[in-house]
């Protein structure tokens, strides 16, 4: 390109088109940025509020270091600030106990659901069953229809049943219920996953002398692993966040993190910093999961949606 400028110029009609294209781009990015702001601001707000003091909250300061000097106030109330980390703290112990409860229940329920669901989905995708009048589509529908069941229908009978079984306020009881709530989703995802694996693979394995279970465990499972991870992660998200059953069925021992957050919500006046710290600590694990494992979550959610 010389100083004389380009030899060929776009015609005015093309340049008008160009301008329209730029405006279009601008609008697209503006909308995207606006929605991204709507999605991220509450998280940013919670994270920054946990470092605020009362005057900062009242004056509506938003940007740390610029508007206000961040303090460890919120985290100190949880016993998780640098200066309280070494010392004994009953609040921190309580928080860690709830956190641990949530982790154990969510992980074990998701694992159990993935095991049960994968087996059932594999069977339904490969073999023809007959339980009385029920054939494969009916059995599939029986499993998937559990998704429609609102938790409130099961909540009160379970309250009474668990009381009789001495499972009230226990991790096992909650884990079993959570497994039930995510099982249809796992079966939904895994059925889709197994349907995409050609049966020729197992046929070859069977010819080579493996049993049905041998072929499933050694050939199919490794291929279906991404789907299982997707189902597991999605189950994890749902069970970690579950509140309704936990609120009804736990009281002291097996209380999960959402219940702890909820019980603090009402009692706090304007000490937003401690609530913010607690909320942020509760959502942080899943934010990390969302950022790092987004691929699997998306895979799990679109299973069965697109044929």
């Amino acid at each position, binding site marked *: 390109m010389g100083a004389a400028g380009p030899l060929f110029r776009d015609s005015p009609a093309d340049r008008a088109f160009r301008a329209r294209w730029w405006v279009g781009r601008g609008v*697209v990015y503006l909308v995207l940025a606006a929605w*991204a702001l*709507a*999605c991220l601001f*509450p998280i940013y*707000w*919670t994270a920054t509020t946990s470092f605020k003091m009362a005057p900062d909250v*009242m004056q*509506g300061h*938003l940007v740390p270091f610029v508007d206000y000097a961040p303090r460890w106030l919120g985290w100190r109330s949880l016993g998780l600030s640098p200066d309280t980390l070494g010392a004994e703290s009953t609040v921190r112990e309580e928080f860690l106990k709830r956190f641990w409860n949530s982790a154990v229940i969510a992980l074990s329920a998701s694992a159990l659901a993935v095991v*049960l*669901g994968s*087996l059932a989905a*594999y069977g339904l995708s*490969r073999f*023809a069953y007959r*339980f009385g009048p029920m054939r*494969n589509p009916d*059995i*599939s529908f029986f*499993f998937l229809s*559990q998704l429609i*069941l*609102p*938790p409130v*229908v*099961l*909540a*009160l*009978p379970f*309250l009474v049943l668990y009381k009789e079984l001495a499972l009230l306020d226990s991790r096992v009881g909650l884990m*079993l219920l959570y497994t*039930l709530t995510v099982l249809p989703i796992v079966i939904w995802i895994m059925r889709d996953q197994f349907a995409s694996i050609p*049966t020729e693979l197992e046929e070859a394995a069977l010819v080579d002398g493996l049993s*049905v279970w041998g072929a*499933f465990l050694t050939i199919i499972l490794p291929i279906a692993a991404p789907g299982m991870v997707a189902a597991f992660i999605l189950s994890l*998200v749902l069970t*970690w*966040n579950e*509140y*309704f059953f936990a609120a009804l069925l736990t009281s002291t021992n097996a209380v999960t993190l*959402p219940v702890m*957050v*909820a019980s603090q*919500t009402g009692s706090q006046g304007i000490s937003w910093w401690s*609530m*913010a710290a607690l*909320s942020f600590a*509760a959502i942080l694990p*899943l934010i990390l999961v*969302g*950022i790092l494992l*987004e691929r699997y979550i*998306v895979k799990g*959610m*679109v299973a*069965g*949606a*697109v*044929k």
Partner: protein
Amino acid sequence: MTTQGDLLHVVTRDAISAPRRALGRILVWGPLALLLLVALLQALDARGVIGLGLTDWRPTLYAYLLWAASLCAGQVVLKGEQGKRLVFVLPAALFTVAMVVFPLVFGLTIAFTDWNLASLTGRHFNGLDNLRQMWADPFYWNAMGNMVLYVAAILVEYAIAFGLALLLASEIRARRFFRVAFLLPLMLSPVAVSWMIGKSMLEARFGPLARLARGFGWDNPSFFGTPEIARATIMVMDAWTFVPLMMIMLLAGLQAIPRELTEAARVDGAGPWKTFWEVTFPLMLPVSVTAVLIRIIFKLKLADIVINVTAGGPGGATDTVTSFIFREYRDRSNVGYGTLLAIVYLVLIVVAMTALMKLADRLTRPRF
């Protein structure tokens, strides 16, 4: 999916000997007899007919687990190769039956009692009294009406989700960043969202959104003051959490549409608006229906946000059926009545969802 015959066809020759068959029968029926015996003993013990000194029903639970495991093993012994196939589905089936069918039947038996956990007299069958009470309960029907409004709001959510999916599917930079950012609200626990948005950002004095509203000239912003505004606020918060779910599904649908189709439409002289309505939207109909149906299922369970932000107020304007029954139990320990309300809700949901699915089926069937 085909229904006739196995997809994976296995030819087997199971010669099952008589002793093996006998062992299989023992494995299937023995523990079942044990289970029934234990249950019977426990029932007698609970009635006080015999004194075993049991404090809970755990033995019956263990007997059920033993029977379930033994039933699976028995199938393999009894039926050979066919049994091995059954074992794929049996565990999930036994689990679901134990966790859903049994409690539902049990729920039906308490739905027609006046059981209040706080009362000392225990439970008594009271026939249709609960139904009559429900019929005259304005708060229950009010909650039901709210549910209709909440479900109707899905149409708006769907439009937003579709718009965002279209934007994400177009040629943009930093797509991964936007996709992750848009997905994050779905990761957050509704309880935390209740505090983050409902209790702090919308707080009338110091919340940033209240400040913003004041900046726009709303003198005394109160997001939960009047019934209409409170309901709208709950709808917005719930939409904020769940729009990503529909968006991701619609995005997958958009990406599955072959480019040739939209290009052909453009070559034929269709503008973007016409291309969307004549090509993209009809092709997206099956995905849209799936996304909306799944969203409706999740919407019908809406409770966490309502319980934690408004507790149903003001005056029941934001109540969902679930949150209403939750309070019926929490505040009044009314197990019998609450269970009946829940079961009526379930029946209504099943009827409505069946009708919707029939409708959806007709809608997505190819017309040409």
